[in-house]
C-alpha cells in the first residue's frame, strides 16, 4: 500500500467516486461470450474489464504432469499489454505467476476434480482493462465461466476485497484507494459454507480492523454471488432463443 498524501474520504464520509464505505463498484457479468472455449464469461467491475475462458476437462500434457487421481486445475492470469497506463510487456511476470497459482488453488476446492483423473481443466483469465481488484474480479468471472462450461462444481467462488483508507475500513478499493490506502484484504468465498478459498492481506491492520474488513467482504461476496447466478440464468434463457445456423457433422471433428 502506498503513502498517505491524498484525501480518500470527504467530509460527508463519501469516497472519491461517491461510494459509501460498504458499497461495491458497479458490476456486470455476461456468460457464454466466446465460441471456441468450452465455457466463458466477461465481467465489467468498475473500470476492470476481464474475460475468462475454460477449456476441459481434457487430457493433460505433458503426461508426467498428470495426476492419476484427479484433474489438475490450471488458471492462467494474464494482463493484455494495453490494459494498464504504462504498457505491460507481454509474457508472465512474477505477479501474474503468483496470482495464477492462488486462483488455481482457490478454484480447485469447488470443482469435483476426482471425476476427471489425468485431465486438466484450464481457466484463462485475460485482463483487458485493469483498475484495482483484478484478482477478485478474475476469480468471480472464472467461476461463472466454469459453470458455463458445465464443469461439475459444489458451488461457485465469489470474490471481493475490503481494505483501509484514511484510517477507515471500506469495501472494494478503487484504483486511487489502492495506491494511497493503508491495507487491502482480497478474499474468495464459498458462499454456501462461508469458507475462504482465497485470502491475502497487505498493509497494516489491527485485529479489530481485520474483523471489520472480513465482515464487509464476506457480506459483499454474497451480493456478488447473486450477480453470478443471474448471469448464468440469463445465459440459459438466451440459449433457448438462439438457433445455430451451421450444421457441420460434429462427430467428425477431432482435435489434435
Amino acid at each position: 500500500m502506498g503513502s498517505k498524501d491524498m484525501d480518500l474520504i470527504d467530509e460527508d464520509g463519501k469516497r472519491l467516486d461517491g461510494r459509501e464505505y460498504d458499497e461495491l463498484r458497479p458490476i456486470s457479468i455476461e456468460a457464454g461470450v466466446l465460441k471456441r472455449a468450452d465455457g466463458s464469461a466477461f465481467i465489467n467491475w468498475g473500470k476492470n474489464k476481464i474475460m475468462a475462458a475454460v477449456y476441459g476437462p481434457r487430457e493433460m500434457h505433458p503426461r508426467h504432469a498428470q495426476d492419476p487421481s484427479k484433474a489438475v486445475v490450471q488458471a492462467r492470469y494474464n494482463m493484455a499489454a494495453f490494459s494498464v497506463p504504462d504498457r505491460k510487456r507481454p509474457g508472465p511476470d512474477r505477479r501474474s505467476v503468483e496470482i495464477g497459482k492462488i486462483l488455481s488453488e482457490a478454484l480447485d476446492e469447488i470443482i469435483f476434480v476426482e471425476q476427471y483423473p489425468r485431465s486438466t481443466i484450464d481457466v484463462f483469465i485475460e485482463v483487458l482493462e485493469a483498475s484495482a481488484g483484478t484478482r477478485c474480479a478474475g476469480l468471480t468471472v472464472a467461476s461463472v465461466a466454469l459453470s458455463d462450461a458445465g464443469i461439475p462444481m459444489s458451488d461457485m467462488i465469489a470474490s471481493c476485497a475490503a481494505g483501509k483508507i484514511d484510517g477507515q475500513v471500506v469495501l472494494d478499493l478503487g484504483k486511487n484507494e489502492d495506491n494511497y490506502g493503508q491495507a487491502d484484504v482480497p478474499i474468495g468465498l464459498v458462499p454456501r459454507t462461508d469458507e475462504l478459498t482465497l485470502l491475502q492481506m497487505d498493509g497494516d491492520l489491527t485485529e479489530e480492523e481485520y474483523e471489520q474488513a472480513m465482515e464487509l467482504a464476506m457480506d459483499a461476496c454474497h451480493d456478488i454471488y447473486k450477480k453470478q447466478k443471474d448471469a448464468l440464468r440469463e445465459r440459459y434463457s438466451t440459449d433457448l432463443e438462439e438457433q445455430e445456423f451451421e450444421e457441420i457433422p460434429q462427430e467428425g471433428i477431432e482435435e489434435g
Partner: protein
Amino acid sequence: MKEIISNITKDYLNRLIKEGKRIDGRDMLEYRDLEIEPGTIGPAEGSAEIRLGDTHVIVGIKMELGEPYPDTPDKGVLTTSAELIPMASPHYESGPPGKDATELARVVDRGIREGEVVDTKDLCVEEGEKAWVIFIDIHVLDFDGNLMDASGIGAMAALLDATVPASEEEELGDDYELPIEHVVIPTTFTKIKDQILLDSRLEEEKVADARLTVSTNEEGNIVAMQKGLSGVFSYEDTQECIKRSKEIGEELRQKVLDVSEKDKV
C-alpha cells in the same frame, strides 16, 4: 499449433465447395459481417474491438517516449506484437509467440509500415534523441478464421482512434491525434482445390491449400502481400485476388472511416 480436422468434415467441405457453396451460405468472394468498435480500452492511447463473424480481436495502441532508430533519426518508431493466447483456441499454447503469431504480427506490421499509414516524422520529438514509440498489440480472444484481416483492420481502426499523450510529458504541449496518412486494408483469400475463397472461417482454413493476403490503400495501390501455406497460386489467381481486394478494400475502408468518424485521410 495447426488446427486438425477429420476426414469426414474435410470431405464434406470439399464437396460443398465443389458445388460452389460455403458452410455459412456466403458467396466465394463475400465477406462476413464485420463489427468495429473503437475506443473500448480506457488505458490505451487507441483501441479497437473487432468481430469478424465469431473471430474476436482487440487491438490496443500504447505510446512511450524512446529513442529513434539510428538510420531514421527523425522518425517515430512502430512496433507490432501479436499473442495467440490459449483463450482463443484449444490449439494455442502459452509462451512466447510461435511461428503463426510471429507471421501475423509481421504481416500486420508491414501493411502499416510499407503502406506509410502513420506520419512517423510527426512523432519525432528531438532528432536522434527522443521520439514516440508506438506499440500495436494484437490480442486474439476468439478464433474463427482470418486473423490477418481482423488484426490488420483492427490495427488500422485503433491507429485512427489513437491520441498522442503529449501532455503527460513536460514541455511537449497538448495531446494530439495520431497523424494518419493512408488507410490500408488487408484482405485474405484461401485456395481450396481450384477454388478461391475470401475471408475464410476456421473450418475452411483447416482444409485450405494456400493463403494470400493483399493489402491496398485508398489509391487502389498494393502495399503488401503475403502468401502462406504449402499450396500454390497461379499468376492469374493473384491477379484475381488483387482485383477483388481493391473492391472489398474500398468498402471496408469506408466502414473503418465511418466508425472512426473521420472523413477520408
